[in-house]
């Protein structure tokens, strides 16, 4: 397979990837923008940047449309990092595989949710919090459905607001952090007026939805799908009947591709310098991959990475300094998030012996308990050896047992044999 040459390849067309492409475009380089979704926008602008209320999304998209040096490749999944700065791509819809050669690479692969297993979490009707938000942006029918949003972090409020706009009856939002923790989050938020404004706007959308701190889901039940959940709200246990449970415990950076390329990962996130360059020269990361900080930080990081990867930092020195200052401000918010939504230990004691931890290979909690580490569990139980390649249960077992998952193996996603041998 003959590789197609680009000076810059950007993986991920969410806010960070779009900002990177827009910033790099003015240098006139040949740029490829790759994303496995059918539409641009990543998760927060899911469904296409052009269709968002956020004017920044529409402006970035218009800028990319006007640049004739950006080759946008939607529906393309990076399945392997090959030697000599090449990436193997597979078309999601079954089309032919292709190889891209890059001089510089920006990885803006975003984040996924952290899921902690509890009895009944595999029932149809139980999904992630951001998961249900993403599904409903794809037309998932929620009008008139009773939904409980649970887990942790400011994402829960955004999810609840989106679901309500789509007609869902969001009866409860259950935040595991206590009021004391949350109170400590509110006051420093004065340093980020835009975030306060967002919180206030969300609040208006959520009239009639009860927000409970110090509250979490214990179990979900139902015969063939979710019917009821058992929850603890402020110390009291109760049952809630619902059609959907949207439960997620925060976000985890998608570092697999970066790790496969040899980039250093610290504490689950890509290590980057002040211009978003990773430990491997010429490879940059932007957005949630280098730490969970939300869309504002992702846009700044994307722009910085785009300028750096297209050698425009010197030419735009004043602007770059401004971006660096905004980046530091955003990173402080990111640290605040991590501190105030720390997970309570009770969440790690919800599994029953028969609760499945690895959903791909149906491995129950009891089968994992005798093992001392991830490798032993994998070899003896097949935990983490299914289709998601441990992306879900790897994080769960890290939380439950303190295991550290091995680094990503090639291929990075389920891949057709034909793509690998051509």
């Amino acid at each position, binding site marked *: 397979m003959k590789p197609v040459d680009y000076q810059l390849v950007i993986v991920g067309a969410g806010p960070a990837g779009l900002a990177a492409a827009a910033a790099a475009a003015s240098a006139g380089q040949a740029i490829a923008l790759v994303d*496995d*979704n*059918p539409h641009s926008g990543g*998760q927060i602008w899911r469904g296409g940047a052009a269709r968002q209320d956020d004017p920044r999304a529409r402006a970035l998209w218009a800028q990319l449309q006007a640049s004739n040096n950006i080759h946008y490749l939607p529906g393309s999944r990076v399945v392997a990092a090959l030697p000599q700065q090449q990436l193997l791509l597979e078309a*999601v*819809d*079954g089309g032919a595989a292709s190889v891209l050669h890059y001089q510089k690479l920006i990885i803006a692969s975003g984040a*996924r*949710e952290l*899921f902690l297993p509890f009895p009944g979490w*595999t029932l*149809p*009707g*139980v*999904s*992630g919090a*951001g*998961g*249900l*938000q*993403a*599904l409903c942006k*794809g*037309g*998932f*029918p929620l009008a008139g459905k009773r939904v409980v949003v649970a887990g942790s972090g400011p994402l829960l409020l955004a999810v609840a607001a989106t679901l309500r706009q789509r007609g869902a009856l969001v009866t409860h939002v259950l935040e595991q952090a206590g009021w004391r923790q949350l109170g400590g989050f509110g006051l420093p938020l004065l340093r980020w007026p835009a975030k306060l404004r967002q919180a206030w706007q969300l609040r208006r959308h959520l009239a009639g939805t009860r927000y409970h701190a110090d509250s979490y889901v214990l179990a979900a039940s139902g015969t*063939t*799908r979710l019917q009821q959940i058992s929850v603890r709200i402020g110390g009291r246990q109760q049952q809630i009947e619902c059609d959907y449970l949207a439960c997620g415990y925060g976000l985890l950076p*998608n570092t697999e591709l970066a790790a496969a390329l040899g980039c250093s990962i610290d504490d689950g996130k890509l290590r980057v310098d002040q211009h978003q360059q990773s430990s491997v020269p010429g490879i940059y990361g932007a957005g949630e991959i280098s730490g969970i900080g939300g869309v504002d930080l992702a846009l700044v990081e994307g722009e910085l990475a785009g300028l750096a990867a297209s050698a425009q930092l010197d030419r735009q020195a004043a602007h770059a300094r401004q971006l660096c200052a905004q980046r530091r401000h955003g990173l402080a918010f990111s640290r605040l998030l991590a501190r105030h939504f720390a997970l309570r230990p009770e969440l790690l004691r919800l599994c029953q012996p028969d609760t499945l931890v690895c*959903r*791909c*290979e*149906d491995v129950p909690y009891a089968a994992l308990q005798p093992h001392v580490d991830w490798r032993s569990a994998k070899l003896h139980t097949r935990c983490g050896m*299914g*289709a*998601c390649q441990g*992306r*879900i249960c790897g994080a769960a077992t890290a939380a439950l047992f303190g295991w550290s998952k091995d680094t990503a193996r090639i291929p990075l996603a*389920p891949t057709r044999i034909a793509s690998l041998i051509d």
Partner: protein
Amino acid sequence: MPDTLTIYLNGRTCVVAPDISVAAALALHNDGRTRLSLSGQPRAPLCGMGVCQECRVEIDGRPHQLACQTWCRDGMHVTAAQLP
């Protein structure tokens, strides 16, 4: 864009809106079910963003396609876990 699309879900004819994912179509017409797990349990989408692989279905004869990242096309054939 047409007002509706016709897809075939486990051989049944289903009329759906033109701009929805296969996962959404399964929620409307298959109680959300996508696949059966190794031990035979019904599953539905979890992550909604192409990571967890729970929404794997067969689309137009190709196995292991992600319903959450695939949009419905007119005449598409989807094979997913059957309703009880």
